[in-house]
């Protein structure tokens, strides 16, 4: 199993640093590392049809209508076969317990039982996935995990393509302007302590108010509560007493080093657990914040 020895890429160094600070998250970090690597590699390599930018109304975007509600981000003609063939081995490396079922799914993709193009973009995608899981006798959760993981390189690619449009929109909502998801994690910078929300679906980062809840927009100038761990004051969870949601937040992160918010969040799953035990719910479901 990769223990990050002799690693050299910035992402691998990120994983090493987080592992050093939070060794209890070793199994989570080691599981998602190959998937994240493959996602970024595929996002660089795959060729996707460009989004029709004329379909995105800038006024509507400025008004709070995310791109996903104006044009499709996942298309049937995206290179799903290429992505699945690359991603399945990465998932197996991180989650060997899923190996048997993933190989069945791979065979189903190869022989045409599963046509991923039929799923993405379809209105009745859930019914289609139900049929596949039954036909191949694999757990629906494993199929879902594959489908969600396979979508990420495409989302990353599409988000990068419209980055300038998003940045020019002056977006001030708590949900992602690209894909509409709520943030999974936030960072507060060190020198000028701006809060930046991170979307774990498509990877977009956007600035947001320090005193407003991203989920329910409740503003609290005097009482915005959060939890921190004594001795690890950088690792915090902001909570909203109104909507009972929490947001994992890395506080006072230096601008001098690169950081991947998802990797940082993976190291802080203990905070997810503590917040959920206190009765708070995450603002969004992420692959690493769901417990039994």
């Amino acid at each position, binding site marked *: 199993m990769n223990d990050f020895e002799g690693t050299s890429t910035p992402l691998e160094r990120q994983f090493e640093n987080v592992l050093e600070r939070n*060794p*209890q998250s*070793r*199994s*989570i970090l080691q*599981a998602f590392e190959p998937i994240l690597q493959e996602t970024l590699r595929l996002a660089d390599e795959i060729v996707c049809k460009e989004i029709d930018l004329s379909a995105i109304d800038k006024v509507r975007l400025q008004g709070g209508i*995310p791109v*996903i*509600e104006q*044009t499709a*981000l*996942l298309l049937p003609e995206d290179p799903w076969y290429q992505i699945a063939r690359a991603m399945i081995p990465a998932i197996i490396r991180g*989650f060997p*317990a*899923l190996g048997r079922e993933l190989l069945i799914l791979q065979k189903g993709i190869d022989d045409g039982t599963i046509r991923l193009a039929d*799923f*993405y*973009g*379809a*209105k009745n*995608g*859930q019914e289609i996935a139900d049929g596949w899981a039954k036909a191949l006798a694999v*757990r629906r959760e*494993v199929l879902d*995990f594959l489908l*969600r993981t396979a*979508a*990420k390189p495409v*989302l990353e690619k599409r988000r990068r393509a419209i980055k300038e449009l998003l940045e020019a929109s002056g977006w001030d909502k708590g949900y992602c302007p690209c*894909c*509409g*998801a709520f943030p999974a994690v936030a960072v507060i910078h060190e020198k*000028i*302590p*701006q*809060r930046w929300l991170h979307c774990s*679906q498509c990877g977009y980062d956007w600035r947001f*108010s*320090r*005193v407003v809840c991203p989920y329910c927009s409740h503003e609290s*100038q*005097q*009482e915005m*509560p*959060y*939890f*921190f*761990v*004594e001795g690890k004051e950088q690792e915090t969870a902001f909570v909203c007493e109104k909507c009972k949601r929490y947001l994992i937040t890395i506080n006072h992160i230096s601008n001098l080093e690169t950081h991947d918010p998802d990797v940082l969040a993976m190291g802080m799953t*203990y905070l997810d*657990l*503590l917040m959920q*035990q206190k009765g708070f719910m995450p603002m*969004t*479901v992420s*692959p*690493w914040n*769901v*417990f*039994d």
Partner: protein
Amino acid sequence: MMEMTRRGFLIVTGAVGSGVALSTLGLNIDPVKTYAEELGKAKRLKAAKQVTTVCCYCSVGCGLICSVDKTTGKIFNIEGDPDHPINEGSLCAKGAGFFDLTEANKYRLRKVLYRAPLSDKWEEKSWDWALPRIARLVKDTRDKGFVTKNDKGEIVNRAETIAHLGSSNVDNEECWLMSVKARALGMIYIDHQARV
């Protein structure tokens, strides 16, 4: 034409819905659970809150965010408010040192210290000793040199034997009070070292 709605998309990507538990995916998260439990037992998980306020110093009025420990009610961090339209999170040297105004500053004086004339030592004194003495000395000095009328015979009511300097280390409201007090006593030599 787009087939999938935003909600449908979010279901596909797993952003809504119940999600897949890590244990279902075959991961052992016992170390995470154990660590969380240990933090709970050691009471290391602390509750805090953010409170926005305005810097007490100059009239620019920069915004600040104070972090307050909910258990003790004490401020443990002060930083610029990035959402404030005036300073957008930045702070000058005085604003950045705002935290030193709180009781967390271990160098804050907690007792009256008195150095007698020609002495080289500080003596601790009580407030009951210090306040009447200050009042006596101010009154006596003021009375000795008080000018009721100037050379032209105009009423001026000036206390020319006392000067007032300070303070760059108090807030605007306290500065106003100190200034009003000084002028009420007739002082005209009033200055503030922040402008120096």
